[in-house]
Protein backbone atom coordinates (compact mmCIF):
# COMPACT_ATOMS: atom_id res chain seq x y z
CA UNK A 1 0.00 0.00 0.00
CA UNK A 2 1.03 3.59 -0.20
CA UNK A 3 2.48 5.38 2.79
CA UNK A 4 2.86 9.10 3.37
CA UNK A 5 6.39 9.10 2.12
CA UNK A 6 6.45 6.68 -0.74
CA UNK A 7 5.23 3.65 -2.47
CA UNK A 8 6.34 0.18 -1.58
CA UNK A 9 5.60 -2.15 -4.42
CA UNK A 10 6.87 -5.57 -5.31
CA UNK A 11 8.89 -5.44 -8.53
CA UNK A 12 7.34 -7.33 -11.44
CA UNK A 13 8.88 -10.71 -12.15
CA UNK A 14 11.90 -10.34 -14.42
CA UNK A 15 12.19 -6.57 -13.87
CA UNK A 16 15.68 -5.08 -14.02
CA UNK A 17 16.95 -4.39 -10.51
CA UNK A 18 18.17 -0.92 -11.28
CA UNK A 19 14.82 0.19 -12.61
CA UNK A 20 14.93 3.95 -12.33
CA UNK A 21 12.05 6.21 -13.26
CA UNK A 22 11.75 9.94 -13.02
CA UNK A 23 8.31 11.48 -12.87
CA UNK A 24 8.66 14.84 -14.51
CA UNK A 25 8.52 17.10 -17.53
CA UNK A 26 11.57 17.91 -19.65
CA UNK A 27 11.16 21.69 -19.41
CA UNK A 28 11.18 21.94 -15.62
CA UNK A 29 14.62 22.93 -14.24
CA UNK A 30 14.13 20.92 -11.05
CA UNK A 31 13.50 17.83 -13.18
CA UNK A 32 16.46 18.62 -15.44
CA UNK A 33 18.69 18.55 -12.37
CA UNK A 34 17.76 14.96 -11.67
CA UNK A 35 18.29 13.90 -15.28
CA UNK A 36 21.74 15.48 -15.43
CA UNK A 37 22.71 13.79 -12.15
CA UNK A 38 21.61 10.38 -13.47
CA UNK A 39 23.50 10.97 -16.71
CA UNK A 40 26.64 11.90 -14.75
CA UNK A 41 26.40 8.57 -12.93
CA UNK A 42 25.60 6.75 -16.18
CA UNK A 43 22.39 5.43 -14.71
CA UNK A 44 19.75 4.45 -17.25
CA UNK A 45 16.36 5.90 -16.48
CA UNK A 46 12.92 6.37 -17.90
CA UNK A 47 11.35 9.82 -17.85
CA UNK A 48 7.65 9.37 -17.18
CA UNK A 49 5.82 12.52 -18.19
CA UNK A 50 2.97 13.33 -15.87
CA UNK A 51 0.13 15.79 -15.63
CA UNK A 52 0.96 18.44 -13.05
CA UNK A 53 -2.10 20.61 -13.57
CA UNK A 54 -5.34 19.34 -12.03
CA UNK A 55 -6.27 16.58 -12.33
CA UNK A 56 -2.73 15.43 -11.52
CA UNK A 57 -1.54 12.04 -12.69
CA UNK A 58 -2.39 9.29 -10.25
CA UNK A 59 1.18 8.01 -10.13
CA UNK A 60 2.35 11.49 -9.12
CA UNK A 61 -0.18 11.83 -6.34
CA UNK A 62 0.56 8.33 -5.03
CA UNK A 63 4.34 8.68 -5.07
CA UNK A 64 4.46 12.23 -3.75
CA UNK A 65 1.33 12.64 -1.65
CA UNK A 66 2.84 15.39 0.49
CA UNK A 67 3.78 17.82 -2.29
CA UNK A 68 2.23 16.28 -5.44
CA UNK A 69 5.09 17.89 -7.37
CA UNK A 70 7.78 16.87 -9.80
CA UNK A 71 10.46 15.62 -9.90
CA UNK A 72 10.00 12.30 -8.15
CA UNK A 73 12.59 9.54 -8.42
CA UNK A 74 11.29 5.99 -8.28
CA UNK A 75 13.97 3.45 -7.39
CA UNK A 76 13.70 0.01 -5.78
CA UNK A 77 10.06 0.56 -4.99
CA UNK A 78 10.71 3.77 -3.12
CA UNK A 79 10.00 7.33 -4.13
CA UNK A 80 12.26 10.26 -3.39
CA UNK A 81 11.03 13.85 -3.76
CA UNK A 82 12.54 17.34 -3.85
CA UNK A 83 15.31 17.93 -6.39
CA UNK A 84 18.05 18.72 -3.83
CA UNK A 85 17.21 15.57 -1.89
CA UNK A 86 17.08 13.48 -5.07
CA UNK A 87 20.41 14.71 -6.47
CA UNK A 88 22.16 13.98 -3.17
CA UNK A 89 20.53 10.55 -3.11
CA UNK A 90 21.80 9.86 -6.63
CA UNK A 91 25.28 10.95 -5.58
CA UNK A 92 25.28 8.68 -2.55
CA UNK A 93 23.44 5.69 -4.01
CA UNK A 94 25.65 5.42 -7.09
CA UNK A 95 28.90 6.29 -5.45
CA UNK A 96 31.81 4.28 -6.78
CA UNK A 97 33.78 4.77 -3.59
CA UNK A 98 36.72 6.45 -5.30
CA UNK A 99 34.87 9.72 -5.61
CA UNK A 100 35.70 10.00 -9.27
CA UNK A 101 32.12 10.57 -10.35
CA UNK A 102 31.12 12.56 -7.30
CA UNK A 103 28.52 15.23 -7.75
CA UNK A 104 29.25 16.88 -4.43
CA UNK A 105 32.86 17.64 -3.51
CA UNK A 106 34.69 15.48 -1.00
CA UNK A 107 35.80 18.14 1.48
CA UNK A 108 33.13 19.07 4.07
CA UNK A 109 33.74 22.80 3.74
CA UNK A 110 33.48 22.64 -0.05
CA UNK A 111 30.29 20.63 0.37
CA UNK A 112 28.93 23.31 2.69
CA UNK A 113 29.83 25.97 0.13
CA UNK A 114 27.93 24.28 -2.70
CA UNK A 115 24.95 23.46 -0.49
CA UNK A 116 24.83 27.09 0.62
CA UNK A 117 24.83 28.43 -2.93
CA UNK A 118 22.41 25.79 -4.17
CA UNK A 119 19.99 26.84 -1.43
CA UNK A 120 20.62 30.45 -2.42
CA UNK A 121 19.70 29.71 -6.03
CA UNK A 122 16.42 28.09 -5.00
CA UNK A 123 15.68 30.95 -2.64
CA UNK A 124 16.40 33.78 -5.08
CA UNK A 125 15.73 32.67 -8.65
CA UNK A 126 12.47 30.73 -9.13
CA UNK A 127 10.10 33.29 -7.60
CA UNK A 128 11.20 36.34 -9.64
CA UNK A 129 11.66 34.23 -12.78
CA UNK A 130 8.08 32.98 -12.57
CA UNK A 131 6.69 36.38 -11.61
CA UNK A 132 8.50 38.04 -14.49
CA UNK A 133 7.49 35.40 -17.00
CA UNK A 134 3.79 35.53 -16.39
CA UNK A 135 3.56 39.20 -17.22
CA UNK A 136 3.60 42.22 -14.98
CA UNK A 137 3.68 45.99 -15.36
CA UNK A 138 6.93 47.66 -16.41
CA UNK A 139 8.00 48.95 -12.99
CA UNK A 140 7.52 45.63 -11.24
CA UNK A 141 9.19 43.85 -14.17
CA UNK A 142 12.26 46.04 -13.84
CA UNK A 143 12.42 45.28 -10.12
CA UNK A 144 12.16 41.53 -10.72
CA UNK A 145 14.81 41.61 -13.43
CA UNK A 146 17.01 43.50 -10.98
CA UNK A 147 16.55 40.80 -8.35
CA UNK A 148 17.55 38.11 -10.83
CA UNK A 149 20.59 40.08 -11.96
CA UNK A 150 21.63 40.67 -8.37
CA UNK A 151 21.44 36.96 -7.58
CA UNK A 152 23.42 36.09 -10.69
CA UNK A 153 25.93 38.75 -9.71
CA UNK A 154 26.61 37.03 -6.41
CA UNK A 155 26.93 33.71 -8.19
CA UNK A 156 29.46 35.29 -10.55
CA UNK A 157 31.56 36.03 -7.46
CA UNK A 158 30.89 32.62 -5.91
CA UNK A 159 32.22 31.00 -9.07
CA UNK A 160 35.70 32.14 -8.10
CA UNK A 161 35.69 30.50 -4.68
CA UNK A 162 33.86 27.35 -5.77
CA UNK A 163 35.53 26.74 -9.12
CA UNK A 164 39.04 27.43 -7.83
CA UNK A 165 40.15 28.65 -11.23
CA UNK A 166 38.71 25.73 -13.15
CA UNK A 167 35.89 25.62 -15.68
CA UNK A 168 32.94 24.66 -13.50
CA UNK A 169 31.59 25.41 -10.04
CA UNK A 170 32.59 21.82 -9.37
CA UNK A 171 36.14 22.42 -10.55
CA UNK A 172 37.24 20.24 -13.47
CA UNK A 173 33.89 18.53 -13.77
CA UNK A 174 30.21 19.41 -13.54
CA UNK A 175 29.06 19.22 -9.94
CA UNK A 176 26.15 19.95 -7.63
CA UNK A 177 26.16 23.69 -8.05
CA UNK A 178 26.64 23.54 -11.82
CA UNK A 179 23.55 21.36 -11.94
CA UNK A 180 21.56 23.62 -9.61
CA UNK A 181 22.19 26.73 -11.70
CA UNK A 182 22.75 25.18 -15.11
CA UNK A 183 19.34 23.53 -15.09
CA UNK A 184 17.85 27.05 -14.99
CA UNK A 185 19.74 28.36 -18.03
CA UNK A 186 16.96 27.62 -20.51
CA UNK A 187 14.48 29.39 -18.25
CA UNK A 188 16.74 32.42 -18.00
CA UNK A 189 17.46 32.62 -21.74
CA UNK A 190 13.77 32.23 -22.53
CA UNK A 191 12.91 35.04 -20.19
CA UNK A 192 15.53 37.29 -21.76
CA UNK A 193 14.04 36.67 -25.17
CA UNK A 194 10.40 36.95 -24.16
CA UNK A 195 10.81 40.10 -22.10
CA UNK A 196 13.67 41.69 -24.08
CA UNK A 197 15.71 41.97 -20.94
CA UNK A 198 19.34 41.11 -20.22
CA UNK A 199 19.79 38.85 -17.24
CA UNK A 200 22.89 36.74 -17.91
CA UNK A 201 24.69 39.74 -19.36
CA UNK A 202 28.00 38.72 -20.99
CA UNK A 203 29.57 42.08 -20.20
CA UNK A 204 28.61 42.18 -16.55
CA UNK A 205 28.85 38.42 -15.87
CA UNK A 206 31.76 37.17 -17.99
CA UNK A 207 32.57 34.18 -15.79
CA UNK A 208 29.00 32.91 -15.69
CA UNK A 209 28.62 33.49 -19.42
CA UNK A 210 31.72 31.42 -20.18
CA UNK A 211 30.62 28.80 -17.68
CA UNK A 212 27.13 28.58 -19.24
CA UNK A 213 28.59 27.84 -22.66
CA UNK A 214 30.85 25.13 -21.26
CA UNK A 215 28.04 23.64 -19.19
CA UNK A 216 25.61 23.37 -22.08
CA UNK A 217 28.29 21.73 -24.24
CA UNK A 218 28.98 18.97 -21.70
CA UNK A 219 28.13 15.41 -22.72
CA UNK A 220 26.10 14.80 -19.59
CA UNK A 221 24.06 17.94 -20.18
CA UNK A 222 23.57 18.00 -23.97
CA UNK A 223 19.96 17.90 -24.97
CA UNK A 224 18.64 18.16 -21.42
CA UNK A 225 18.44 21.95 -21.13
CA UNK A 226 15.85 23.19 -23.64
CA UNK A 227 16.68 26.36 -25.52
CA UNK A 228 14.74 29.59 -25.33
CA UNK A 229 12.56 28.73 -28.33
CA UNK A 230 11.30 25.48 -26.78
CA UNK A 231 10.25 27.37 -23.68
CA UNK A 232 8.62 30.03 -25.82
CA UNK A 233 6.54 27.42 -27.62
CA UNK A 234 5.41 25.98 -24.31
CA UNK A 235 4.48 29.37 -22.83
CA UNK A 236 2.66 30.43 -25.99
CA UNK A 237 0.60 27.24 -25.88
CA UNK A 238 -0.15 27.73 -22.18
CA UNK A 239 -1.20 31.32 -22.77
CA UNK A 240 -3.40 30.31 -25.70
CA UNK A 241 -5.13 27.75 -23.49
CA UNK A 242 -5.69 30.35 -20.79
CA UNK A 243 -7.15 32.94 -23.14
CA UNK A 244 -9.27 30.32 -24.85
CA UNK A 245 -10.90 29.39 -21.57
CA UNK A 246 -14.22 31.22 -21.34
CA UNK A 247 -14.51 33.58 -18.37
CA UNK A 248 -16.32 32.08 -15.38
Amino acid sequence: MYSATGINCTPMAGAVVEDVKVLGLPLIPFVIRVLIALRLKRVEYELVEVQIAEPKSEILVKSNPVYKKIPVLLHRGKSICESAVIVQYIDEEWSDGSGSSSILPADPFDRALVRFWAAYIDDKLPAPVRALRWGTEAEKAAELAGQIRQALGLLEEAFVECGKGKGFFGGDAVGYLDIALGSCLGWIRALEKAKSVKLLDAEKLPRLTGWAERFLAEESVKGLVPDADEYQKFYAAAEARTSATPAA
Partner: protein
Amino acid sequence: MAEEEEKEVTLLGTWSSPFVLRVKWALRIKGVEYNYVEEDLRNKSPLLLQHNPVHKKVPVLVHKGRAIAESSVILHYIDEVWPLRPLLPHHPYEKAMARFWCKFEADKLSPPLWRVLTTRAEEQREAQASSIESLGLLENELEGKKFFGGQTIGLVDVWLGALAYIIPIYEEITGLKLVDQSKLPRLCGWMEEFLSSPAVEGTLPPKDMLLPRYAAMREAFLAKAKGPAQQ
Protein backbone atom coordinates in the same frame (compact mmCIF):
# COMPACT_ATOMS: atom_id res chain seq x y z
CA MET B 1 41.63 37.36 19.15
CA ALA B 2 43.27 35.09 21.73
CA GLU B 3 39.92 34.01 23.18
CA GLU B 4 38.52 32.95 19.83
CA GLU B 5 41.58 30.90 19.01
CA GLU B 6 41.41 28.80 22.16
CA LYS B 7 38.55 26.81 20.67
CA GLU B 8 38.60 26.52 16.92
CA VAL B 9 34.82 26.63 16.61
CA THR B 10 32.73 29.77 17.04
CA LEU B 11 28.97 30.04 16.79
CA LEU B 12 27.32 33.37 16.09
CA GLY B 13 23.74 33.36 17.32
CA THR B 14 20.91 34.98 19.21
CA TRP B 15 19.37 33.68 22.43
CA SER B 16 15.89 33.32 20.99
CA SER B 17 16.60 31.78 17.60
CA PRO B 18 15.42 28.20 17.11
CA PHE B 19 17.76 27.95 14.10
CA VAL B 20 20.74 28.68 16.34
CA LEU B 21 19.53 26.11 18.83
CA ARG B 22 19.65 23.42 16.16
CA VAL B 23 23.34 24.05 15.78
CA LYS B 24 23.92 24.14 19.55
CA TRP B 25 22.24 20.77 19.92
CA ALA B 26 24.29 19.25 17.13
CA LEU B 27 27.53 20.54 18.64
CA ARG B 28 26.47 19.21 22.04
CA ILE B 29 25.67 15.78 20.66
CA LYS B 30 29.08 15.66 18.99
CA GLY B 31 30.84 16.89 22.09
CA VAL B 32 32.37 19.81 20.24
CA GLU B 33 33.53 22.76 22.34
CA TYR B 34 32.86 26.17 20.90
CA ASN B 35 32.89 29.90 21.55
CA TYR B 36 29.46 31.47 21.47
CA VAL B 37 28.92 35.05 20.32
CA GLU B 38 25.55 36.64 21.05
CA GLU B 39 24.55 38.92 18.19
CA ASP B 40 22.23 41.89 18.30
CA LEU B 41 20.42 41.70 14.98
CA ARG B 42 19.35 45.32 15.19
CA ASN B 43 23.02 46.23 15.40
CA LYS B 44 24.91 43.55 13.47
CA SER B 45 28.52 43.07 14.38
CA PRO B 46 31.37 43.41 11.86
CA LEU B 47 32.06 39.73 12.57
CA LEU B 48 28.59 38.69 11.43
CA LEU B 49 28.69 40.91 8.35
CA GLN B 50 32.11 39.54 7.47
CA HIS B 51 31.14 35.90 7.93
CA ASN B 52 27.66 35.99 6.40
CA PRO B 53 27.67 38.88 3.93
CA VAL B 54 24.99 37.27 1.76
CA HIS B 55 22.21 36.86 4.30
CA LYS B 56 23.58 38.69 7.39
CA LYS B 57 21.71 36.19 9.57
CA VAL B 58 22.40 33.77 12.39
CA PRO B 59 23.40 31.03 12.94
CA VAL B 60 26.89 31.20 11.47
CA LEU B 61 29.47 28.58 12.34
CA VAL B 62 33.11 29.58 12.06
CA HIS B 63 35.54 26.68 11.98
CA LYS B 64 39.27 27.17 11.49
CA GLY B 65 38.54 30.68 10.28
CA ARG B 66 36.01 29.67 7.61
CA ALA B 67 32.34 30.51 7.93
CA ILE B 68 29.34 28.33 7.20
CA ALA B 69 25.82 29.79 7.12
CA GLU B 70 22.28 28.36 6.92
CA SER B 71 21.31 25.88 9.64
CA SER B 72 20.74 22.98 7.24
CA VAL B 73 24.16 23.47 5.68
CA ILE B 74 25.76 23.82 9.12
CA LEU B 75 24.16 20.64 10.44
CA HIS B 76 25.43 18.63 7.48
CA TYR B 77 28.87 20.17 7.93
CA ILE B 78 28.99 19.30 11.61
CA ASP B 79 27.89 15.74 10.88
CA GLU B 80 30.60 15.33 8.26
CA VAL B 81 33.49 16.94 10.15
CA TRP B 82 32.72 15.14 13.44
CA PRO B 83 31.43 11.75 12.25
CA LEU B 84 31.06 10.06 15.66
CA ARG B 85 27.46 9.87 16.92
CA PRO B 86 26.10 10.45 13.40
CA LEU B 87 23.07 12.66 12.89
CA LEU B 88 22.30 11.31 9.46
CA PRO B 89 21.53 7.64 8.87
CA HIS B 90 24.00 5.57 6.89
CA HIS B 91 21.84 4.36 4.02
CA PRO B 92 21.26 6.74 1.10
CA TYR B 93 17.50 6.22 1.13
CA GLU B 94 17.24 6.82 4.87
CA LYS B 95 19.40 9.93 4.41
CA ALA B 96 17.05 11.12 1.69
CA MET B 97 14.05 10.63 3.97
CA ALA B 98 15.73 12.60 6.77
CA ARG B 99 16.44 15.47 4.39
CA PHE B 100 12.91 15.26 3.04
CA TRP B 101 11.38 15.69 6.50
CA CYS B 102 13.56 18.71 7.17
CA LYS B 103 12.36 20.30 3.95
CA PHE B 104 8.81 19.32 4.83
CA GLU B 105 9.06 21.17 8.13
CA ALA B 106 10.25 24.30 6.37
CA ASP B 107 7.62 24.13 3.62
CA LYS B 108 4.56 22.64 5.25
CA LEU B 109 4.75 23.12 8.99
CA SER B 110 6.66 26.26 9.80
CA PRO B 111 4.56 28.58 7.57
CA PRO B 112 1.12 27.54 8.88
CA LEU B 113 2.42 27.57 12.47
CA TRP B 114 3.60 31.11 11.91
CA ARG B 115 0.17 32.02 10.58
CA VAL B 116 -1.43 30.50 13.68
CA LEU B 117 0.63 32.93 15.72
CA THR B 118 0.16 35.99 13.52
CA THR B 119 -3.44 35.84 12.26
CA ARG B 120 -6.93 35.54 13.64
CA ALA B 121 -10.40 34.24 12.84
CA GLU B 122 -10.85 32.27 9.62
CA GLU B 123 -7.25 32.60 8.48
CA GLN B 124 -6.00 31.40 11.85
CA ARG B 125 -8.39 28.46 11.90
CA GLU B 126 -7.20 27.39 8.46
CA ALA B 127 -3.60 27.71 9.64
CA GLN B 128 -4.39 25.58 12.68
CA ALA B 129 -5.96 22.88 10.52
CA SER B 130 -3.01 22.97 8.13
CA SER B 131 -0.52 22.73 11.01
CA ILE B 132 -2.35 19.79 12.55
CA GLU B 133 -2.44 18.01 9.20
CA SER B 134 1.31 18.38 8.86
CA LEU B 135 1.88 17.34 12.47
CA GLY B 136 -0.19 14.26 11.68
CA LEU B 137 2.32 13.18 9.05
CA LEU B 138 5.12 13.53 11.58
CA GLU B 139 3.05 11.48 14.02
CA ASN B 140 2.97 8.66 11.46
CA GLU B 141 6.74 8.87 11.02
CA LEU B 142 7.26 8.19 14.72
CA GLU B 143 5.57 4.81 14.59
CA GLY B 144 7.72 2.30 16.46
CA LYS B 145 10.39 4.91 17.12
CA LYS B 146 11.47 6.87 20.16
CA PHE B 147 13.00 9.59 18.03
CA PHE B 148 12.75 10.40 14.33
CA GLY B 149 16.33 9.15 14.21
CA GLY B 150 15.33 5.81 15.77
CA GLN B 151 16.64 5.00 19.23
CA THR B 152 18.83 8.08 19.31
CA ILE B 153 18.44 11.70 18.32
CA GLY B 154 19.16 12.31 14.66
CA LEU B 155 19.09 15.12 12.14
CA VAL B 156 15.30 15.31 11.97
CA ASP B 157 14.98 15.48 15.75
CA VAL B 158 17.49 18.32 15.90
CA TRP B 159 15.72 20.05 13.01
CA LEU B 160 12.24 19.74 14.50
CA GLY B 161 13.27 19.98 18.14
CA ALA B 162 12.45 23.64 18.66
CA LEU B 163 8.81 22.81 18.03
CA ALA B 164 8.82 20.94 21.32
CA TYR B 165 9.08 24.17 23.25
CA ILE B 166 7.64 26.63 20.74
CA ILE B 167 4.34 24.86 20.11
CA PRO B 168 3.25 25.01 23.77
CA ILE B 169 4.05 28.73 23.76
CA TYR B 170 1.95 29.31 20.64
CA GLU B 171 -0.87 27.32 22.24
CA GLU B 172 -0.71 29.44 25.36
CA ILE B 173 -0.68 32.74 23.46
CA THR B 174 -3.43 31.88 21.00
CA GLY B 175 -5.58 29.58 23.11
CA LEU B 176 -5.57 27.10 20.22
CA LYS B 177 -4.63 23.43 20.57
CA LEU B 178 -2.01 22.16 18.15
CA VAL B 179 -0.64 18.97 19.66
CA ASP B 180 -3.56 17.19 21.27
CA GLN B 181 -2.27 14.22 23.27
CA SER B 182 -5.26 12.11 22.36
CA LYS B 183 -4.77 12.75 18.63
CA LEU B 184 -0.97 12.97 18.39
CA PRO B 185 0.25 10.79 21.24
CA ARG B 186 3.59 9.83 19.66
CA LEU B 187 4.45 13.43 18.95
CA CYS B 188 3.59 14.33 22.55
CA GLY B 189 5.86 11.59 23.78
CA TRP B 190 8.62 12.70 21.42
CA MET B 191 8.41 16.29 22.65
CA GLU B 192 8.89 15.12 26.23
CA GLU B 193 11.72 12.74 25.34
CA PHE B 194 13.50 15.36 23.31
CA LEU B 195 13.23 18.15 25.87
CA SER B 196 14.53 15.92 28.66
CA SER B 197 17.46 14.50 26.70
CA PRO B 198 21.02 15.41 27.80
CA ALA B 199 21.77 17.28 24.58
CA VAL B 200 18.86 19.63 25.11
CA GLU B 201 18.81 20.07 28.89
CA GLY B 202 19.68 23.60 29.90
CA THR B 203 19.80 24.97 26.37
CA LEU B 204 16.29 26.34 26.00
CA PRO B 205 15.61 30.07 25.99
CA PRO B 206 13.79 31.06 29.18
CA LYS B 207 10.05 30.78 28.70
CA ASP B 208 9.40 33.98 30.64
CA MET B 209 11.43 35.85 28.02
CA LEU B 210 10.23 33.92 25.01
CA LEU B 211 6.50 34.05 25.64
CA PRO B 212 6.27 37.87 25.80
CA ARG B 213 8.46 38.04 22.71
CA TYR B 214 6.13 35.86 20.65
CA ALA B 215 3.06 37.55 22.14
CA ALA B 216 4.45 40.90 21.04
CA MET B 217 5.03 39.53 17.52
CA ARG B 218 1.41 38.45 17.41
CA GLU B 219 0.22 41.89 18.47
CA ALA B 220 2.45 43.59 15.92
CA PHE B 221 1.24 41.44 13.04
CA LEU B 222 -2.42 41.79 14.00
CA ALA B 223 -2.06 45.55 14.25
CA LYS B 224 -0.39 45.70 10.84
CA ALA B 225 -3.12 43.55 9.32
CA LYS B 226 -5.79 45.88 10.63
CA GLY B 227 -4.29 48.74 8.68
CA PRO B 228 -3.90 52.37 9.69
CA ALA B 229 -7.49 53.29 8.87
CA GLN B 230 -8.95 50.85 11.35
CA GLN B 231 -6.55 51.28 14.25
